[in-house]
C-alpha cells in the first residue's frame, strides 16, 4: 500500500478509555512518523501507560481507532500486533523470571520464526534461535550474562533485557514504557546511548519521566495531561510552550533547565 508508506507508521484517532468515571484516555489523537523517536511525556496519572497498553492490545479502548502500517489494529489481540511488528517493553519489568536471559530472547525470536507446534527437536539446540538471542543480547550489552537466570539479574540488567527481548521480535515500532525507570546515573547514561543507536534503525515511541533523556533523544514530543494531548511538536516548541510549563509547574525547572 503506497499511501501507508508515505503516511504515519502509527495513527491514533479519537481514542477514549475510561475507568469508572475517569477518562484515562480522552479523545486522544496521535501520529508517529516512520524513523522518528516520538516521546510521550506528562505528569503522573496522565494516562501514558494506559495509552501504551491500548497500542499493544493489553487493554481495549472504549472508542476510537488505531492504525499501524496502514492497517487497523484497534481490536487485534496483542500476540497478533506483535506479529505485525509492534513490540513493547514494560514499565514494570515483565520477563520470564525462571528462564535465563538467553532463553527469554530466544523465545522472542522463536515467536517470529513460524509456529511453535514443534514437539520433538530440542529448542535450546536450534542454532539460529540461539544466534539471534546472542545478537540481541550483544546489542544491549548483556552478552556475557546470557546464561544467568532473569531472577538473578540486577534491575538495570533486567531493563536492558526487556529491550533485547523487544528487539528480537524484529519490530517496526518499539514502544518503550519508561526504560529508564529505577536506573542509576551510569545505567541511565548507558540506556540513552543505546537508544541513540536504536533510533537510527527503528521507529520508537518513548514514554519517559527523565526529561533530560527525553530532550536529548526525541524528534518529536507529545505532552499528555489527564488523558488529553495538550501539546505536540519538536523539543524546542515543547520547551517554550506555556501550557506545558503550567502543567509541569512542579517539575518546571526540569523542563527549562535543560535549555
Amino acid at each position, binding site marked *: 500500500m503506497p499511501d501507508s508508506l508515505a503516511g504515519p507508521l502509527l495513527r491514533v484517532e479519537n481514542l477514549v478509555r475510561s475507568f469508572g468515571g475517569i477518562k484515562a484516555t480522552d479523545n486522544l489523537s496521535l501520529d508517529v512518523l516512520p524513523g522518528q523517536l516520538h516521546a510521550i511525556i506528562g505528569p503522573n496519572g496522565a494516562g501514558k501507560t494506559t495509552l501504551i497498553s491500548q497500542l499493544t492490545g493489553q487493554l481495549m479502548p472504549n472508542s476510537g481507532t488505531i492504525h499501524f502500517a496502514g492497517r487497523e489494529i484497534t481490536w487485534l489481540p496483542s500476540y497478533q500486533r506483535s506479529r505485525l511488528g509492534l513490540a513493547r517493553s514494560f514499565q514494570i519489568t515483565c520477563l520470564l523470571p525462571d528462564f535465563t536471559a538467553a532463553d527469554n530472547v530466544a*523465545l522472542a525470536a522463536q515467536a517470529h520464526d513460524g509456529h511453535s507446534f514443534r*514437539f520433538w527437536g530440542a529448542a535450546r539446540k536450534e542454532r539460529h534461535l540461539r544466534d539471534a538471542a546472542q545478537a540481541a543480547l550483544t546489542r544491549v550489552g548483556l552478552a556475557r550474562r546470557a546464561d544467568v537466570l532473569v531472577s538473578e539479574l540486577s534491575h538495570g540488567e533486567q531493563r536492558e533485557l526487556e529491550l533485547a527481548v523487544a528487539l528480537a*521480535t524484529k519490530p517496526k515500532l518499539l514502544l518503550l514504557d519508561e526504560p529508564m525507570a529505577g536506573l542509576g546515573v551510569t545505567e541511565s547514561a548507558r540506556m540513552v546511548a543505546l537508544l541513540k543507536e536504536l533510533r537510527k534503525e527503528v521507529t520508537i515511541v518513548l514514554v519517559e519521566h527523565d526529561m533530560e533523556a527525553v530532550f536529548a533523544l526525541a524528534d518529536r514530543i507529545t505532552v499528555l495531561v489527564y488523558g488529553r494531548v495538550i501539546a505536540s511538536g519538536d523539543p524546542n516548541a515543547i520547551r517554550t510552550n506555556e501550557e506545558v510549563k503550567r502543567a509541569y509547574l512542579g517539575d518546571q525547572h526540569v523542563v527549562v533547565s535543560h535549555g
Partner: protein
Amino acid sequence: MKPHINASNVIAALVALCLTLLPLYSAATGNIFILTLFTRIVIFALAAASLNLIMGYGGMMSFGHAAYLGIGGYAVGILAYEGIGSGFIQWPVALAVSALYAFVIGALSLRTRGVYFIMITLAFAQMAYYVTSGLSRYGGDDGLTIYKRSNFAGLIDLSNRVQFYYLCLACLFGGVYLIWRIVNSRFGMVVQGVRSNEQRMQAIGFHANRYRLVCFVISGTICGLAGALLANNTDFISPATMYWTRSGDLMVMVILGGMGSLFGPVIGTIVFLVLEEVLSQFTEYWALIMGPLLLLIVLFAHGGIMGVLGRLSRA
C-alpha cells in the same frame, strides 16, 4: 542441556532399573503380590506423569485428571462388553475419546485461571462421574466387569502377569520419554514460558491459550492410555475410578515427587502407593498418618522429593 550426574538423576536411573528388574525378583522369590502392586504403581505413575505435564510444566492445576482414567477405562470396557475385544480398536478409541474430552473441557476451562480453573476442571470430572453412574446398560454405579482383556492378535498376552507388567512399564517409559522431548521442544518452551509469565508471552507474539490447550489435550490423551491399562489391570471399570478423591491422589503424587521434574511423578507415585499399602496393613486409619506426612513434605520439602535430592546434590 547435557544430563548431569546428580543425586536426583542417579535415583531416577536406579528406580528405572529396579522397575525393569522387578519381575525377575518376583519370579525368584515367588512374591506375586509385589508384581501386582507395582503394575498398579506403574499405571498410576503414567497418569501422574501426564498430569505433571500440565501442572508442573504448564502451570495448569487440573483437579479433574482422574476423568481420563475413567474415560480410557470405559472405552475399553464398553467396547469389550459390545463384543469388540481387539486392543487395536479399543486403545485408539480410548486415546481418541480422551483427547476429544480434553479438547472440549480444555477449551472451556482455559478461559479461567487459578482457583477457578481448579474448580471448573473438578466440576467437569464430577460430571463425567455422574454420567457414567447413569450408564445403566454398562452397570451404572456398580461398574462394569471386563471379562476379556484387550486382545492384541497374539503379539502380547495381557493376561500374562509379566507381559502385562512390561507393557505397562513400556508405556510409562515411553510416556516419560515423550514428555521429555515435548518439554524441551519449541512447544514445551512456549508452554513453560506461559506458565512463567503469560502477559509477556502474549506481548512477544504467542497466542498463549492455543498452546495451553494443545498441552492439555496431550496430557489427557496420555492419561487416557493409563486408563486403558488400568481397566485391563483390574478387569473392571466403575465411576469410582474418576471420583474427585482420585484426582486429588494424582495431584499429591505429582507434588510429592516434584512438580516440573521429569521423573518426580514416578517417584511420588511409588512413595504414595507403597506408603498407602504399608500403612493400611497396620491400621484402617492409615489416612491419619498419611495426611500429616504429606503435609510435612509439602511444607518443608519445596519441589518434592526430587527437589530435595536436587538440593542435596548441589550442597
